[in-house]
């Protein structure tokens, strides 16, 4: 479903992605972890081209991703993204947040869009918040709205960029629960996260990155019990394994 071959990216002189080779099959759940600054976010942001890579190929759903506007549109249509800081539109109600892209990108009728929006609000367990503004919700609720918003356009792939890092400990669980439900339904998911418990329980594969490279990858059971590289061993010894 996603294939990255020899992907490289530089910020100025700094090489933030170095020869990334990665394939993701349909229905696979990937967790990307690693120390901060290792290129995890940049990697998934290259998939929907919020960042442009400078070398190598990225193919999503058979479409080669480049800076061409038309292919970008096609590719982004199939990818939903959830951000660390939610990025809900603060001037719109929850319902309007969920309907905007449906109506103005996908050309869905207002009534249908509202139906879809309410359906996904149900799915993230906050149907009663439809008419509130984002600022009136808790962080956990906002992030669930953000997940629902991404799902409304019926994407085939979901990207999560540290979805729980800006949340209070109490709210992390409600967001992870929604993500776990999504995973059991077969969505293709790529999550950058520090939640090792989620990685252990939900992921098919864990990718460990350091200094722009994929250092190690494998099924979570193997990765957590028997990491191969010293860098991964050091990392795992320092994060909380809950």
């Amino acid at each position, binding site marked *: 479903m996603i294939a990255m071959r020899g992907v490289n990216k530089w910020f100025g002189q700094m090489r933030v992605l170095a020869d990334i080779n990665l394939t993701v099959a349909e229905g696979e759940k990937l967790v990307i972890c690693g120390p901060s600054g290792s290129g995890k976010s940049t990697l998934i942001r290259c998939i*929907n081209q*919020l960042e442009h890579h400078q070398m190598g190929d990225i193919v999503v759903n058979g479409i080669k991703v480049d800076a061409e*506007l038309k292919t970008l*549109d096609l590719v*982004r*249509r199939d*990818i*939903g*993204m959830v*951000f660390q*800081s*939610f*990025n*809900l*539109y*603060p*001037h*719109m*109600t929850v319902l309007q947040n969920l309907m*905007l*892209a449906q109506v*103005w*990108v996908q050309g869905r009728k207002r009534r249908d869009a509202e139906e879809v929006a309410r359906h996904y609000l149900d799915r993230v367990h906050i149907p009663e918040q439809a008419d509130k*503004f*984002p*600022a009136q919700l808790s962080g956990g609720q906002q992030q669930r709205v953000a997940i629902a*918003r*991404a799902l409304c*356009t019926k994407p085939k792939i979901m990207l999560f960029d540290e979805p729980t890092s800006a949340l209070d400990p109490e709210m992390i669980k409600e967001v992870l629960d929604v993500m776990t439900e999504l995973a059991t339904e077969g969505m293709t998911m790529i999550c950058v996260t520090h939640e090792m418990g989620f990685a252990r329980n939900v992921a098919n594969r864990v990718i460990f990155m350091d200094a722009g490279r994929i250092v190690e990858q494998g099924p979570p059971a193997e990765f957590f019990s028997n990491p191969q590289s010293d860098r991964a061993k050091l990392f795992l010894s320092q994060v909380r394994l809950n």
Partner: protein
Amino acid sequence: MATDHTAFLPPPVVSAGPLAWMRRNLFTDWRQTALTLIVLYAVIRGVPPLLGWLFVDATWQGTRDDCVANGGACWAFVSARWGQFIYGFYPADERWRVNVTFAMLALSVVPLVLPMVRGKGWIIGFLLTLYPVLAFCLLYGGVFGLPVVETARWGGFMLTLVVAITGIVGSLPIGILLALGRRSNMPAIRTFCTLFIELFRAVPLITVLFMASVMLPLFLPTGFSLDKLLRALIGVAVFNGALMAEVVRGGLQAIPKGQYEAATAAGMGYWRMMGFVILPQALRLVIPGLVNTWVAIIKDTTLVLIIGLFDLLGIVQAGVADANWLSASVTKTGYVFAAMGFWILCFSLSRYSMYLERRLGLGASR
């Protein structure tokens, strides 16, 4: 049952009542007391004579001689010239057209101001597309059997409104486009917009109006002439568009990067992202700045006097120079009247903006 009586005690007497309030706020120490007394003295010396001039000694009906005899404001002059102050040299028989034009505007603006009215999009659409055409047809004439009234005969409060409203409505889209252009990734567009903004920002409006009225015809092909008022309107809109652009740009800079990313990731293109996500937030943030510019536009309409158009101030100025009325009290009254006209316009605009900010602030607070 044991009752806690302290819960029902009234507040201590010292902190309530007007006397305590005065003691706390006006006579705290000797400096406050001195300031209070100075202000009080200024009010006592200033206000009664002002009220006397405005109302008690004022002449409401009569001629210049009555005004000179009474010594107060000469409202008789204002009421004698009322028609001219409002309509300029617009023919008396055709003035209903001006009334209809502005009544239509008022009738469409009122539902816009009320929060409970639905379908505001349609009203705005009407105001921005059909209304200008209708207004032009009505005011200028030449269609529907209405006799033509040359723009040279427009004047007074009506002209002030025409220039101010065109300036306000015209400058906003120009400003938005220039602001977006200045932040564009395309070097040619960015350079053009930056140069444009910096050029118009760095010259006085009078210069722009002079250019529009004297220089512009030189560049137009012969036999093709633009109406003087139209040239002034374009000048005002473009000049203020450049000012507006910087206000809007300030708002654009305040929008977090995440908003752009969320819209982009959702597959929105540039214009949809700007139109639905970025601009609504940015414009909300800069309401005070926008209204500041709008108020300045209303007041700057007086500068069209320079190129021979008679707005409210211009027509008052011409009126007080009339030999039949020439006197100190008439002159003062005329200028006070013009000032009140502008003040009412600008003050109501700023009140409305405060209301708008409060109402929109509900969803925008983060």
